[in-house]
């Protein structure tokens, strides 16, 4: 071969043969292009990026600490904001009103009334409750707050007078990561199981298939709940953070099955494909075939399945925490926050307790956009 070189000249017509520019791009790049053209998908990506930033900057963005209990403002409603200054003219600085507690003569309950005559300025970058950002930045500067003794509740307060805004941001840290961690675990488990099952077949495959079928024959939320109920109670040795981690494990225990099945089918198809046969004919090892030929081709599908599984995990966590079997105090999650809104009567009186639900819906929606966009981008039929 070495001395062969250029003894066959390139035929003239081939020199002019058109080769498309698209051909320079890898499948990944093509996927990225297709994805970037999809408006819904881009909404998903940008929206989620914004949400993650907001949630993780939570302690800075919210004026109050999420644990701070204000017994003076139990079930307090959201404070209003006005841009009309005390002088009655438009002002760039927003104002809120002083809150007065009044006894309702009919129901003999204390209600909170805004004193429209007394405006309180909202100040920016002020010092307030101390907090730690990302686990290591210690600070007490908040984006906005009002002067003490007044406190500012953008989204109202819960049954213990805690700031819903702060709690929603804090809960978001849990709710928006639990799906990611759960899916990551699920991918690892599902990839190993699915690849092994599809590549070696035989007994390995049979056993794996039976296990998956059995897991799939339980209804998900009740099974999650049963496993969560089997976790030990929160104590000094078993903290809420331990529980958070184990809940993600429980969520992924059920979540890996779908991925394993899909991957198995893919791997089995690739095993028969001509490009794998060609690699075998060149003497490629199993490891090379799996890691060079199969997984890179399956990777896009893994990503799609994972992206589509995240919403399910978020909804699963929400349901579990809502039932009191998921995230427990002192950690909060959106589902745990919604626990306060279990009764119709409470919801009717204090509708702001439902706001965490809106956060869930938006997040899940954005993840769905993202997942759908990815699936369309991977779809070989649309160029």
């Amino acid at each position, binding site marked *: 071969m070495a001395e062969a070189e250029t003894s066959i000249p390139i*035929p*003239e*017509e*081939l020199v*002019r*043969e*058109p080769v*498309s520019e698209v051909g320079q791009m890898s499948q990944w790049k093509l996927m990225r292009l297709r994805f970037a053209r999809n408006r819904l998908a881009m909404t998903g990506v940008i929206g989620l990026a914004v949400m993650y930033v907001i949630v993780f900057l939570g302690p800075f963005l919210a004026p109050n600490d999420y644990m701070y209990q204000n017994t003076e403002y139990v079930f307090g409603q959201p404070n209003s904001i006005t841009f009309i200054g005390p002088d009655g003219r438009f002002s760039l600085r927003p104002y809120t009103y002083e809150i007065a507690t009044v006894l309702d003569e009919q129901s003999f309950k204390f209600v909170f009334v805004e004193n429209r005559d007394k405006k309180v300025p909202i100040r920016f970058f002020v010092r307030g409750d101390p907090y730690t950002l990302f686990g290591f930045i210690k600070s007490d500067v908040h984006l906005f707050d009002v002067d003490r003794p007044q406190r500012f509740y953008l989204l109202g307060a819960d049954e213990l007078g805690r700031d819903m805004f702060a709690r929603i941001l804090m809960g978001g840290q849990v709710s928006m990561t639990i799906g990611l961690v759960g899916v990551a675990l699920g991918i690892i488990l599902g990839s190993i199981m699915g690849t092994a099952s599809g590549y070696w077949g035989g007994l390995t495959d049979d056993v794996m298939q039976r296990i998956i079928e059995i897991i799939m024959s339980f209804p998900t939320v009740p099974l999650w709940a049963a496993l969560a109920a089997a976790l030990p109670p929160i104590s000094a040795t078993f903290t809420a953070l331990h529980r958070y981690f184990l809940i993600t494990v429980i969520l992924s225990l059920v979540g890996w099955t779908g991925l394993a099945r899909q991957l198995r089918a893919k791997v089995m198809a690739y095993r028969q494909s001509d490009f794998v046969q060609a690699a075998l004919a060149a003497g490629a090892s199993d490891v090379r075939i799996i890691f060079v030929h199969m997984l890179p081709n399956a990777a896009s599908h893994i990503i799609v399945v994972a992206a589509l599984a995240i919403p399910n995990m978020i909804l699963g966590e929400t349901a579990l925490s809502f039932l009191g079997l998921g995230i427990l105090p002192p950690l909060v999650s959106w589902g745990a926050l919604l626990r306060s809104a279990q009764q119709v009567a409470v919801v009717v009186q204090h509708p702001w307790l439902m706001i965490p639900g809106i956060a869930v819906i938006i997040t899940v929606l954005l993840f769905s956009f993202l997942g759908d966009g990815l699936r369309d981008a991977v779809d070989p039929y*649309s*160029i």
Partner: protein
Amino acid sequence: MANQAQSPATTRDLVVRVRDLHVYFFTDLGVSRALNGVSLDIPAGKVTGVVGESGCGKSVTALSIMRLVPHPGRITKGEILLYREREKQNGHSIVEEVNLTDLDPQGPVIRSIRGAELAMIFQEPMTSLNPSYTIGDQIMEAILLHQKCTRKEAEERAVDILARAGMPNPKTVVRRYPHELSGGMRQRAMIAMALSCTPSVLFADEPTTALDVTTEAQILDLMRELQAAMGMAIVFITHNLGVVAQMCDTVAVMYLGRIVEQAPVEPLFYEPQHPYTRALLRSIPHVGSRTKARLEPIRGVVPDPYATIQGCPFHPRCDYRKPGVCDVRVPATVEVGESHTVRCFLYTEQGEDNG
């Protein structure tokens, strides 16, 4: 709509006349010009071959005549005329001209024509039968739709037509599902279904391409037999020049959405005029030729469907191209022999601008 021809004829030479047909597909990537001015006459009771490489527009031509062009394709220009024989009370028949391009593609008129006057069979006998219904159900469906008869009569007719299509045990086959039959038998069932209402034209879109050579021979024999017995016209779409030579009376050669040459089968094979036809015939190995001469390939590749080629679409691959002529204008169709037409500047100065 359906309007009587000026002078009511009683017999017809042509069943379908296609004039300057343009079909474009409007996709996200741009406009794909599937048909770019196709003119084709389909004589009654003859086998017309349409031959060309993949993507040349053979199938789209047939689908356009059936008015079944799939989304996002549209007929943008041209007309398709169907000549139907209608029986009058006094026993005489007259020929009625219907402009198919005017019809609503889902409307009642074209539906009464589809299946009854114009029938079609496809390449993949595996996928062209519905897996959920029995062979009998699917044949009877067409019969019940177009003919006045009871279910029982329809079933008898289905058994009858299956028998004519050379199906062994037609009485049991009507109760069989497609997956229980072999490829060859499925294609027989498709043929039976298409012919169940005695259409005047059968479009056969690569009906034997997916079949093995011995099965192909059986199906070709069958189609020839049925054509002789039932007298319908067949439009035989294929890329296999051998099949064309065996089956067809006249042949139309397509390249990139245009018919470049049309002739009776013998002149086409013995005196091909268009450079593409010549090159095509030279490039294939002939079985039984006893020569081991090198093949003469056509250079280059078929351009992608979105490309717009200035001038004659074949000129980039043509050995006879005339610079300044072939790459500027599209040649007009000229007659070079009896019923033998060619679109090439070797035979005419006359051209048209790119449409």
